[in-house]
């Protein structure tokens, strides 16, 4: 099985626990040990200090590391901390960055159209997948974002096992909504979701270095789903999403 992890981090952060690592070299070693071929990675500084600083550090840390693909943390441009959306997307393209991540709660901005509309529209036009932690938003915001930007590839991260009753109606309404399954540990959750909405809606993500990848990997491998579906979840869907970026 060819695993491609959609949710990894490098860089020093404020509250590491004993045994948790922060360097790109250590991340590569852990991926190798676990049999994970590739990972999509953001930088802790971009979340906990400043996106521009962290995204630049990411390029440096990932240089020469073929196993690791960059994911920029972005936000609206109105304060001047971030380029205007089209220019931002141009820069991402120039630097080979094919994924964006938002932290609206941590970075204190609204996901609503008056604030994020232009940014989301640019990412939608460029087909750049957007990764968003579930604890950074709520179901109504997700519905509004997907409704306003139907072609936006949105991946909701760290969706937990209590999500079905809101997630399923959103899956029915929005075909470009995806979930990362690292915390989606509902009983038979992967198989149930694949049967109802198709395996193309789920992505493998570990949350390294905060969480162990063995959990979601076992959840995929023991799922009552076909090998083809498991391959999509393990890495095929992320490859497709990144491959669709022009």
């Amino acid at each position: 099985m060819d695993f491609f992890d959609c949710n990894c981090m490098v860089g020093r952060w404020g509250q590491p626990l004993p045994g948790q690592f922060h360097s790109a070299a250590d991340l590569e070693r852990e991926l190798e040990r676990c049999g994970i071929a590739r990972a999509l990675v953001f930088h802790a500084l971009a979340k906990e200090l400043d996106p521009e600083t962290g995204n630049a550090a990411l390029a440096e840390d990932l240089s020469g590391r073929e196993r690791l693909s960059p994911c920029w943390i972005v936000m609206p441009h109105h304060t001047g901390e971030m380029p205007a959306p089209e220019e931002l997307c141009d820069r991402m393209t120039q630097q080979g960055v094919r994924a964006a991540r938002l932290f609206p709660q941590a970075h204190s901005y609204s996901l609503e159209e008056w604030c994020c509309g232009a940014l989301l529209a640019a990412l939608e036009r460029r087909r750049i997948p957007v990764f968003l932690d579930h604890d950074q938003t709520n179901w109504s915001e997700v519905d509004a974002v997907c409704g306003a930007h139907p072609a936006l590839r949105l991946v909701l991260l760290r969706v937990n096992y209590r999500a079905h009753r809101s997630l399923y109606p959103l899956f029915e309404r929005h075909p470009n909504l995806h979930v990362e399954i690292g915390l989606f540990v509902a009983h038979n959750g992967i198989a149930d979701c694949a049967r109802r909405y198709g395996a193309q809606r789920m992505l493998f993500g570990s949350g390294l270095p905060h969480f162990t990848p063995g959990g979601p990997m076992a959840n995929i491998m023991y799922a009552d789903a076909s090998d083809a579906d498991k391959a999509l979840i393990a890495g095929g869907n992320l490859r497709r999403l990144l491959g669709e970026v022009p």
Partner: protein
Amino acid sequence: MTSLMERVRAGERLDDLLVIDAHAHMGRWFNFHVPDGDAAGMIRTMDRIGIKACVSSGHAGIGPDFILGNDDVARGAQAFPGRIFGYIAVNPNYPAQEMREELERRWTTGCFVGIKFHADMHKYPSDGARYAPAWEFAHEHDLPLLSHDSVGHLAGPAERYTGAKVLIAHAISSLDMLEAAAELASRRPNVYLDICGSPLVFGALEMAVEKVGAGRVLFGTDLPFIDPRPQVGRVAFAKIAETDKLRILGENAAALFGLEGRLA
């Protein structure tokens, strides 16, 4: 020899190993959808992975009606003998006599091998006086008692009721919980750490083994409240000895619950 990590990474069933889930439930739940949560659905999942047996308390038992929950588990245990065993769930918010009668009645059926508190759901601490009949029963019968509570509320009973084997539910879900649980386990030989929980904190299992030894750590999953597959992966991928993984996955539970010779 193929390592456990390689086997799990390949999705290989673990039927040849002794895998026992020491923290399971059963049934539906008000707060979220539990697909395939009945006894038959649980057995299908256990078979898919190679989990030989589980020790279960009904969702009704940790929630609104402990007698209904114990009924559900008794039916499951009778339908799948040697695969499903029960915790006798109790609720301290009902009369003590009801608790005593329930403990005696369930214990004589042979289907139940431990006692379950959900102090968090029932909003009453494990060291409160209303739980005393259950602690006394566990002490007298040398029973495992699994409590979902903060570690601070288990220290007193662990010392007082030395016959009871105190299983701290979700003991490694956070570093704070792990350190408190390990500290108590280091002082009390009758205390064990259950690894059940949804956030699989990187390095927590390794730290638990280092602090208390693999013999005091138990594989538990919350099945079907939570899927058991991720916990299997957590143990398999941990940076600990293969022999320690086998102890955690089932050998410890078989000894603790007296299941040898009773498994299907």
